[in-house]
């Protein structure tokens, strides 16, 4: 209960005018854009992080629950206080704090709307990829909390792929920063876990976004169909043809009718469905791509394809799509929107069955779908003023989720679980899965005060774990019955019973990785887990055992002209995809394709109690539950033994071509800055020493820039890039085609790996010169670079280099240098003697490591897995 005293205290923290407790004030914050309603006890509007922190501490003292909220456009009841708690409205956090297009990031407050940041970025030729249809009104804090999607995520991935770091107020009121402009800090992927946590882990007070330069050109098309199945069919065929449009959006007749009634956008009123398709990229080759799409559509009973002639026509086509939800409001006072997601090839079937469900319950249904992602938005029309309709519509919504899960899909692709879909989590997760997720939540928020009683279904006895049960609908292949898994479970249980510790190994390639284990460990191997559990080439995903080597996987995929878009450094032919998932490793092409965290769709792992736990699924958009897949990815075997992983695949590029130039470091660096904020899209930008004088920091460097994709586009980009580089005083060394799987730097990495110490340092691109200087300036370090092996990964802001020696003082001072540049350090390899004495993840303790240890202790209380290997040991 909110007391008078508590209100007075809040007033002293945020000021009287920023506290709302009147009955109107409460009513105004009792709703969001969903159907859930609940009265908060009190609402506050803090001005800064300190005020949020103090308010949280005050609420803790009183035992009051807390819900953070932006502009209240949530679609699953996520921003409603259902326990009459404190609502913290972050609408005053509305500043864009900085934009750094050359390092491809921006720092914003969470109350800035998605559109505001897009406009600010557009002014410097950049954009932020996630573009939820609500982007004009939804705030970035909410986008992060829900892991929002949007039309563009077909090509660029969801919000989680584009959040680099954040400042947040923890459940106890302490302020913590995680991540930042430098990619992939050591340890668990906390920011990946935070994104999509629906306000249940911490309150985000600042965000670092990953931005991209605008593309050269865009073509938007409207394909008109007389049959919705034909439209859905076209979507499948387009992707199967290896084309990746930005967006593939579908609307059905009812939505067309509503949209045309509110803003005539030129959707034919007599059509059964329309697709809004957009391709973007270099001008060269784009028209051909659009033509190819048109051909596929026409071959699939399309009535006609209209291409937007100018910006105005393009805007109009999009206005209709973006306003579809609102336009539906013309037809009825309320709608229930679902966001179930299936594999795109079963989309026609799913839509058919949804129609049956709607008819059965007596509701009109309109469909807007991110068809390319298989993400549906059936809108059920009703009037909540009619008695019983609200209950009936919820029942229909439930049935729609069942349809999706029965077809192997998930219950929520982007709107979140909140309160509306909480119970439906049981359709796809087991009791153990859900208890594990709740354990992670409680590791962040032990008193369960942040947005409590949402997302995870509640147990019959309050505060207790859920009983054990299997998912009510979803049958996951593999899992406990997959090859090699029963034996591993046996080993893990036995170790647990006897109090021993374990280390998970694959091909034993990375035995030297991480801090050494504190006690004697026995190993448990994944090598028997070599099955391909499910390979769906049409839908571009594969589920396979952790013991298969990456090299073998790429061979398998070659048969369908597909590949896993990764060239992890230091991987030999035997290294397994289990290691890849566990380490989350990525090479210089991360700047273009992303890291394992971006294309792992789901995992199964054995936890410290020997139970099989499932995370994610096999659809490309999935926000059902907390993002355990990202927590496990890169957790280095500290939380469990990954037995199988589901990966998102891509069509192989037609051509991989690199251009190289030579010059001094400053010129290479300046060229890299230019390339980063240019509408060229290199797969990587790397500099390696050109000459090699022992004991000296290399004076001349070879800058290598690669492009991958359609031949025509790659050729054009190489040409433009060559021009740009030569303008930056670099001397052209020529171009060449490189092998897809091995890439360009295998030898360079191998050379680095030969040294006793391999150092990886990271910072935003603009800070890399400082970082390099930092490495050089460390007393005595210069003389120790005999190997003189360096790889400057400009595109990802990373430096890999070889060292012969490293002492405590050097390690500490280097770490501090990196931290002061908002970067981080990690030793990928050291002699065992060094590792015994030092933490290879950094020369001093980082505050966020404490959170990692809380998670580790919660999920693996007896330190069964690799004790002592983590950052901060």
């Amino acid at each position, binding site marked *: 209960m909110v007391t008078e005293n508590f209100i007075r205290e809040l007033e002293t923290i945020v000021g009287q005018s920023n506290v709302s407790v009147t*009955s109107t*004030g409460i009513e*105004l914050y009792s709703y969001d854009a969903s159907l859930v309603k609940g009265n908060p006890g009190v609402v506050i509007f803090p001005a800064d992080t300190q005020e949020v922190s103090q308010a949280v501490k005050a609420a803790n003292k009183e035992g009051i629950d807390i819900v953070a909220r932006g*502009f209240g456009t949530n679609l699953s009841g996520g921003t409603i206080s259902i326990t009459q708690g404190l609502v913290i409205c972050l609408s005053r956090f509305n500043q864009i704090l900085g934009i750094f297009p050359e390092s491809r990031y921006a720092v914003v407050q969470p109350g800035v709307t998605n559109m505001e940041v897009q406009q600010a970025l557009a002014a410097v030729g950049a954009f932020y990829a996630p573009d939820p249809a609500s982007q004009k009104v939804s705030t970035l804090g909410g986008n992060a909390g829900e892991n929002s999607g949007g039309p563009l995520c077909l090509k660029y991935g969801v919000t989680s792929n584009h959040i680099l770091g954040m400042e947040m107020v923890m459940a106890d009121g302490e302020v913590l920063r995680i991540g930042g402009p430098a990619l992939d800090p050591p340890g668990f992927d906390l920011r990946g876990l935070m994104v999509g946590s629906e306000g249940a882990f911490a309150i985000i007070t600042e965000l670092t976004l990953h931005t991209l330069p605008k593309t050269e050109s865009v073509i938007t098309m409207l394909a008109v169909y007389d049959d919705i199945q034909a439209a859905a069919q076209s979507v499948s065929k387009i992707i199967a043809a290896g084309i990746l449009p930005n967006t593939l959006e579908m609307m059905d007749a009812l939505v067309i009718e509503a949209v045309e009634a509110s803003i005539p956008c030129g959707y034919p009123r007599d059509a059964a469905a329309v697709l809004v398709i957009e391709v973007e990229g270099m001008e060269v080759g784009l028209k051909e791509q659009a033509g190819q799409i048109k051909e596929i559509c026409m071959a699939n009973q399309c009535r006609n394809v209209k291409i937007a002639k100018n910006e105005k026509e393009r805007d109009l086509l999009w206005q209709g799509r973006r306003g579809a939800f*609102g336009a539906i409001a013309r037809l009825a006072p309320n709608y229930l929107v679902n966001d179930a997601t299936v594999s795109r090839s079963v989309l026609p079937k799913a839509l058919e069955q949804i129609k049956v469900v709607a008819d059965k319950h007596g509701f009109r249904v309109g469909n807007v779908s991110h068809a390319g992602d298989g993400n549906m938005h059936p809108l059920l029309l009703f009037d909540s003023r009619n008695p019983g309709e609200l209950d009936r519509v919820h029942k229909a919504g439930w049935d729609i989720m069942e349809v999706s899960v029965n077809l192997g899909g998930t219950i929520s692709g982007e709107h979140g679980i909140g309160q509306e879909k909480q119970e439906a989590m049981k359709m796809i997760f087991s009791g153990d899965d859900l208890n594990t997720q709740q354990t992670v939540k409680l590791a962040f928020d032990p008193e369960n005060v942040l947005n409590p009683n949402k997302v995870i279904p509640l147990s019959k006895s309050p505060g207790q774990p859920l009983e054990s049960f299997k998912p009510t609908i979803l049958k996951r292949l593999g899992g406990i019955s997959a090859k090699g898994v029963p034996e591993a479970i046996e080993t893990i249980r036995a170790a647990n019973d006897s109090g021993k510790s374990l280390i998970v190994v694959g091909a034993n390639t990375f035995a030297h990785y991480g801090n050494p284990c504190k006690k004697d460990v026995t190993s448990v191997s994944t090598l028997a887990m070599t099955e391909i559990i499910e390979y769906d080439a049409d839908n571009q995903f594969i589920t396979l055992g952790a013991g298969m080597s990456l090299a073998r996987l790429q061979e398998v995929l070659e048969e369908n002209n597909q590949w896993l878009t990764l060239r992890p450094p230091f991987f030999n032919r035997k290294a397994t995809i289990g290691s890849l998932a566990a380490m989350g490793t990525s090479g210089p092409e991360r700047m273009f394709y992303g890291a394992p965290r971006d294309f792992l769709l789901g995992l199964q792992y054995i936890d410290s109690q020997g139970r099989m736990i499932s995370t994610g699924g096999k659809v490309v958009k999935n926000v059902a539950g907390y993002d355990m897949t990202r927590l496990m990815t890169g957790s280095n075997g500290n939380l469990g033994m990954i037995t199988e992983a589901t990966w998102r695949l891509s069509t192989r590029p037609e051509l991989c071509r690199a251009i190289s130039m030579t010059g001094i470091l400053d010129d290479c660096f300046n060229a890299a800055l230019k390339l980063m904020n240019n509408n060229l899209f290199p797969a990587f930008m790397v500099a390696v020493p050109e000459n090699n004088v022992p004991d000296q920091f290399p004076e001349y460097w070879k800058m290598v820039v690669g492009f991958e994709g359609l031949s025509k586009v790659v050729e054009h980009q190489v040409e433009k890039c060559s021009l740009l580089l030569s303008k930056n005083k670099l001397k052209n060394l020529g171009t060449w085609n490189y092998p897809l799987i091995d890439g360009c730097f295998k030898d360079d990495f191998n050379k680095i790996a030969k040294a006793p110490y391999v150092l990886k340092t990271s910072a935003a691109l603009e800070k890399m010169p400082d970082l390099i200087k930092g490495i050089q300036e460390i007393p005595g370090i210069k003389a120790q670079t005999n190997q003189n092996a360096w790889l400057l990964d400009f595109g990802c802001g990373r430096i890999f280099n070889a060292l012969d020696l490293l002492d405590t003082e050097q390690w500490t001072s280097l770490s501090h240098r990196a931290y002061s540049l908002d970067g981080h350090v990690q030793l990928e390899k050291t002699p065992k003697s060094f590792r015994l004495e030092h933490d290879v993840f950094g020369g001093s303790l980082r505050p966020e490591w404490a959170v990692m240890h809380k998670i580790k202790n919660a999920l693996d209380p007896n330190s069964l897995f690799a004790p002592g290997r983590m950052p901060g040991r």
Partner: protein
Amino acid sequence: MDIFKNYDAIAQCNKCGFCQVSCPIFRSTGHESGVARGRLALMRGIIEDRIQWTKELEDPLFNCLGCGACTDACLADVPTADLVIKGRAEYLEKVGRKPIHKLLFEQLLPYPKRLHMAARAAALGKNSGISKVAKALGLLRILGRDFAKAENIVEKLPTKPFRGTFTPGEYQGSGESLRIGYFIGCGVDVIQQEAGQESLKILKKIGKTVTILDNCCCGLPAWTYGDIDAAQKLALKNLTAFSSQSLDVIVTDCSSCASFLKKYSQVFEDDENNQDIAKSQAPLFQDMVEFLFKNGYSTTPVKSPIVVTCHDPCHAVRGQGISRENREILKKIPGVEFREMPEADWCCGGAGSYALTHYDLSMKVLDRKMKNVASTKADFLVTSCPACMIQLSHGVRRAGLKTKVCHISEIVTGAKPEKE
């Protein structure tokens, strides 16, 4: 008044939140009470008995500018600004009204002469400071604390009304056949008289006769305040006066008046008789901007090139759908470079007497407008509503801009730019 009658329209809001994009008040406060979705939720709460009629509702109902931008952004087209007026009307009934509004709507606005007298008193007071005079008269207590802050909004008040110089009656024009009635809005009558003079020049050039009407206030201020009775009385007084004249067209150079004159029939929702009268007269009314656009006017070329931008009054762009006409007129003037400003159709925060009652909020809205004006570096900021002119002039002074605010009539006749 009973908002229950509008339950369907109110329930049509499905809380998508898109109104937040375009609401100048929400953009300033970030508070749900200051946006259509919130106002509608409260009215629905009243209807469904979760919320009671209390003073708590004053802010959410009365801090709406009535600019209508939310309805533009609303795909379900919920007419929130109109619904808010209904809400205000019921509020006045159930919670009570302030004495100043009684005085204004019932005693001053229906009677041009009394308004003139009041204005003259204010003009005299202005020299010694409005707030001091108001304080002495105990008016501050009645008007509310914001009135003292607002006193500088009007820079100078003429001592004589427009109709003191140009007495109502028929004047000869140089046109061939058109019989024009010139509707004098209170703003032109009392403050923006220079604009009125230029409008009159234009009308005389086009019309065979121009009749300066002895109209009273159009009723819009009373209507937006929720005083439906007062609005009806004013409307009826005007309609009766017009019906005794034989005119081809009634032109006003106030876009707010024009939009309200055109929708007089809505004022008489339950009164078919007067509704019919209003409907029959509706085709007569024209905004000066559309009149100029239809009839053309040979514009005087400006001496040296100037940059001009325009502000769309809410009652022009959303009230009457006028946004192309003003731009076309300006672009055709030789020597004028027209530069579009961002958010030209956003409310300036003037909203009639809004600045008097909600000074701080009004200034936040105005500051946003001035940032947009400044970005154009325009010499002139042109509009067609005297109330906007007052607010915008205050804005450019506050922001220290060199941009001058003027009425479109003044640019067209060449009165602005003033000859150095």
